[in-house]
């Protein structure tokens, strides 16, 4: 695909670096405590942990929807701990985020949804058409380019959301349960897309509950439990899972 051949932005340092980061919502209790982790360039991580453990909160820090309430955070080598609002857009253009609830724009067609990041970045229309068409064909939605999300199945919407996240060749892909609504064959195809992006230089973090998916691929995992993150090598199982078994 042409989109996969596009030259990507380079930077010095790790993709994400958290130092003793804590997060709380308003005056509530901390949902993340003293998280220190490093996501190197060109890495692939699964993010696992029980519901409510803080997976989504950790991701929201990384896509700059929240500021850490404590600690320091670097993204693409730059300090973003207290990033000014008007500076965030340039960082977000190097991110691809896939939400559990997709967050597609229902008044736009699948094509326009996927084209959104490119158009916002001011990419020429011909390039937009070419890249979006190729990518939607890759995820098996060539028949549904002009369909609106509300007319698509959950799995199809998920693929549109994934296409939107990767169309800009991001430095970091954050995916929250990206294979939760598709059958195994499509899940594998989507994983293949993420691995392809990873090989081409993107760092990928995939939050998932799907243990079999984690076991199928030789990637390290970040396990989060009660707001504490633990980095585990590929193949290792978190202590709590062992306890549960």
């Amino acid at each position, binding site marked *: 695909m042409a989109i996969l051949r596009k030259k990507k932005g380079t930077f010095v340092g790790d993709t994400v670096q958290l130092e003793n980061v804590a997060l709380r919502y308003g005056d509530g209790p901390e949902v993340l405590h003293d998280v220190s982790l490093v996501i190197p360039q060109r890495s692939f991580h699964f993010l696992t942990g029980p519901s409510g453990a803080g997976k989504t909160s950790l991701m929201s820090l990384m896509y700059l929807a929240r500021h850490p309430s404590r600690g320091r955070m670097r993204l693409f080598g730059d300090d973003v701990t207290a990033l000014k609002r008007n500076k965030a*857009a340039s960082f977000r253009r190097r*991110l691809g985020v896939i939400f559990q609830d997709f967050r597609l724009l229902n008044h736009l067609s699948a094509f326009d949804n996927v084209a959104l990041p490119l158009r916002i970045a001011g990419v020429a229309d011909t390039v937009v058409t070419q890249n979006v068409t190729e990518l939607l064909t890759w995820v098996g939605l060539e028949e549904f380019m002009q369909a609106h999300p509300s007319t698509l199945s959950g799995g199809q919407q998920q693929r549109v959301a994934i296409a939107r996240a990767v169309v800009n060749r991001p430095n970091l892909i954050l995916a929250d349960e990206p294979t939760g609504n598709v059958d195994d064959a499509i899940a594998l195809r989507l994983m293949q897309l993420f691995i392809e992006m990873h090989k081409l230089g993107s760092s990928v973090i995939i939050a998932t509950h799907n243990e079999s998916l984690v076991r199928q691929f030789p990637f390290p995992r970040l396990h989060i439990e009660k707001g504490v993150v633990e980095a585990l090598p590929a193949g290792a199982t978190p202590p709590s899972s062992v306890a549960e078994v």
Partner: protein
Amino acid sequence: MLKIRSDLPLRGDSSSRFVFWLVAILVFMAALAVTANSYVEALLTGWNQSVTGTLTIQIPTDDSATNNADDVENLLNILNAQESAVSATVVPAEKMSELLEPWLGDSTLITDLPLPLLIDVQLTANTPDAVQTIVDLTKKTAPHAIIEDHRVWLNRIVGLAEGFSAIALSVMALVTGALGLIVVFATRASLTEYTQTIDVLHIVGAKDGYVAGQFARRALVQGVFGGIAGLALYGPALAAIAWLSSRVQEGLLPDVSLPIKHWLIILALPVIAGILAMVTANMTVRRILALKI
């Protein structure tokens, strides 16, 4: 309406139509205010031109002599000899009846009335000195003469015209303020309605300016098209006024044609409304989004 690619579903939302019609009404009101102002201004200019540099001397009829023919003759000779006067002529009886016709009708009554003689004096310069010379000479020659230099009533008319202008300006200021408020509230409502969509736009890399631009473009279209609709209402209203005034007897209302400047301002109103709406929407969105993380 103009087709603009938008990432926000703004075209069909409820506030769109609401703003469109309110802008139409406001531009209609603004056009009427501008027209009233232009009309009064044109009226005044006309009067001013016909009155500046002239004096009217009235010689009342008295019971003893018929119009004091000698006095009049004498006065005309003296005035015409002056450097400050271009000419002094007696207003002929036909002209008098013509002037009085709208009030008294076309009847023999006019000729039977003991009308004063009017002397129309054209001045070389409309300076107080020139006026004073004529006044002094007239007082000496014909002590009963009444001198009308038009200034008093003209000043009052100017005052009235200025009042009209002030009202027209106030209407314009109110209309501008109302337009701004409408756009601010409609934009705020849309922002609340599309919070989630705007969040998505931000996450995929949109700056506040990009989002503000979408609202601003929508406001520009609404302003311009609402303004055109307002002028579409104004056209028939103006035609109706013109028709009503044409039914009034000639002479009572002077025939006034509005200057080209007036029509240019009227045509510019939709554009002004559009730009005002666009700038207001842009500022509103930026200000509100700046408060977020």
